[in-house]
C-alpha cells in the first residue's frame, strides 16, 4: 500500500526527528509504532498521513495516493468541536467533503452505532465521558470509510478499564472494516494486544530498530492467553536491547 525508503525528517530547529526509516505498509495491516517519547513515532505518523513531507527519502503509494477522507485520524485528545453535538462532530469529515446533513445522516448514525454511541448522537462533548468522547472521535475517523486509519496514542489519557474496552472494540472494528491501521503507542501491553506487526522505534534520531510479527489471534480473549504474556516479554526484551544499542 505504502513504501517508505530512507525517510528522514528534521524539526524546524534542525534536530533530526527521523533518519533512514524503511517501512512497507500492506493492505489490511494492523501496525503498532512502539517506542519511548521522542523516538519520532508521531512524526512518522504525520509523514504517512501526508501532513508533512519527508526531507530525505521517499514515500510511495501503490496506486493513487489517498484523497480527502481516505485517511482517518484519531489523536490523543479527542479534539471534538465543543459547539457541535456528537452526531454533528461525526458528520464533519463528510460535511467538508460537501455532503449535506440529510445525505450524510445514515452514515453518521451507522458510525456512531459502530462505536456503541447510537443513543448519544444529540449530546454535546462536554456531556460525554472521556471514553465516550474518544469513541466519537473514532466514529468521526471511520465515517468516511477510510482506507487507512491513523491513531496517535488515542487511549493514553483514559483509565485502564476504559482503555481495555476501547482496545477490544478497535480490534473488532478493524476485523469488520478491514482497513489498514497504524497505531502509535508507548505501551508495550497495548502494542502486543492490538497489533499484527509491532515496529520498535528508538530515539535520537528516530529510527526503526526492530519488528515483531504477532503470533496471536486478534481476539479479546488473548489478554489472558500465556502467549500474550510471552509476546509482552519478548517485546520488552527486544525493546531493551534496541535501546541499549549505540
Amino acid at each position, binding site marked *: 500500500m505504502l513504501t517508505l525508503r530512507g525517510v528522514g525528517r528534521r524539526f524546524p530547529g534542525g534536530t533530526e526527528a527521523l533518519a533512514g526509516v524503511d517501512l512497507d505498509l500492506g493492505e489490511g495491516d494492523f501496525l503498532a509504532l512502539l517506542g519511548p517519547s521522542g523516538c519520532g513515532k508521531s512524526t512518522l505518523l504525520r509523514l504517512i498521513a501526508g501532513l508533512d513531507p519527508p526531507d530525505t527519502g521517499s514515500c510511495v503509494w501503490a496506486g493513487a495516493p489517498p484523497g*480527502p477522507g481516505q485517511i482517518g485520524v484519531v489523536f490523543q485528545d479527542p479534539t471534538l468541536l465543543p*459547539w457541535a453535538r456528537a452526531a454533528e462532530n461525526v458528520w464533519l469529515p463528510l460535511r467538508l*467533503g460537501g455532503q449535506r446533513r440529510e445525505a450524510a445522516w445514515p452514515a453518521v448514525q451507522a458510525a456512531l452505532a459502530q462505536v456503541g454511541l447510537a443513543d448519544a448522537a444529540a449530546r454535546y462533548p462536554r456531556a460525554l465521558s472521556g471514553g465516550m468522547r474518544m469513541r466519537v472521535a473514532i466514529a468521526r475517523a471511520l465515517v468516511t470509510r477510510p482506507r487507512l486509519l491513523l491513531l496517535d496514542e488515542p487511549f493514553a489519557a483514559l483509565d485502564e478499564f476504559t482503555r481495555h474496552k476501547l482496545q477490544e472494540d478497535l480490534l473488532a472494528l478493524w476485523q469488520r472494516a478491514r482497513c489498514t491501521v497504524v497505531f502509535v503507542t508507548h505501551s508495550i501491553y497495548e502494542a502486543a494486544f492490538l497489533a499484527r506487526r509491532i515496529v520498535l522505534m528508538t530515539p535520537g534520531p528516530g529510527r526503526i530498530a526492530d519488528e515483531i510479527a504477532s503470533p496471536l489471534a486478534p481476539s479479546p480473549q488473548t489478554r489472558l492467553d500465556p502467549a500474550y504474556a510471552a509476546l509482552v516479554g519478548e517485546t520488552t526484551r527486544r525493546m531493551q536491547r534496541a535501546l541499549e544499542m549505540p
Partner: protein
Amino acid sequence: MNGATWLRAAPALFGLAALLLWEGLVRALDVPNYLVPGPLAILRAFLEDPGGLLLALLSTLSVTASALLAASSLGVLLALAMAASPWARAAIQPWAVVLQVTPIVAIAPLIIVWVGDPFTSLVVCATIVAFFPVLSNTAVGLAAVSPELLDLFRLNGASRWQILWLLRLPAALPYFLAGLRISGGLALVGAVVAEFVAGSGGFATGLAYRILEASYRLRIPRMFAALVLLCIAGIAINAALAGFSRWLLRRRGEV
C-alpha cells in the same frame, strides 16, 4: 438563608448599608448640599425632572449602542483580516495599539470638528475607545485553534473558507463575547467622555452635558443624580452582555 443566597444579596445589602451611612453622616455633620448631597437629596433632584434626565440618558445610550455595534463590527473585520494574512496583521496591529493608547479626550475635539455631525462624531469617539477589546480578543480566538483540528480539516480537503466558517469563527466566539463585554463598558465611557468635550463646545446632548450644566449652576444633587443614572446604565449594559453571552454559549452546549 444559606450561603449562596447571602452571596447574591451581598451587593444590595452592602449598597444599602453604604447609603444609610452616607445619609447619616451628611445629616450628622451638617454637610451642605452643594458640597456633598445625601442620597435622599439626589433622589429628590431626580424626581424634580425625571423626563429631562431620562431623555439625556436615552441619548447617551443610543450613542453607546451605535458605538458598540460599530466597534464590534470593526473589531471582528480587522481580526479576520489579521487572521487571514500575516501582512495585514503586521500592518494593523501597531496602529490599533496607537489608537488604543491615545487619550480620547485629546483627540475628541479634532474628531468633533472634522466629522461635523454631533451624533456621528460622538459615535466615532466612543467606537475608538471601545473597539480594541473586541479586536484583540477575536484575534486571539481566531488563532487559538487546535493544530490537530486543523490537520483533521486539511486531511479531509477543507477549503480556507470551510476552515474559517466551520472552525475558526465558532472557536473565536467565546473570546469575542468576552471582548464584547469589556467593550460595552468602554463604549459608555467613551460616549460620556466625548459628550463632555462636545458639551463644553456647546453641543447640548446626553447625560454628560446634564452633568456639566448642573455643575455650572451649582445644582450638585442633580449632577449626582445624572451620575447615578450613568452607573446604573453601566451595570445594566454589563449584565445584559453577560446574560447574552451565557445564553448563546449555553445554546451551543459550551457552558
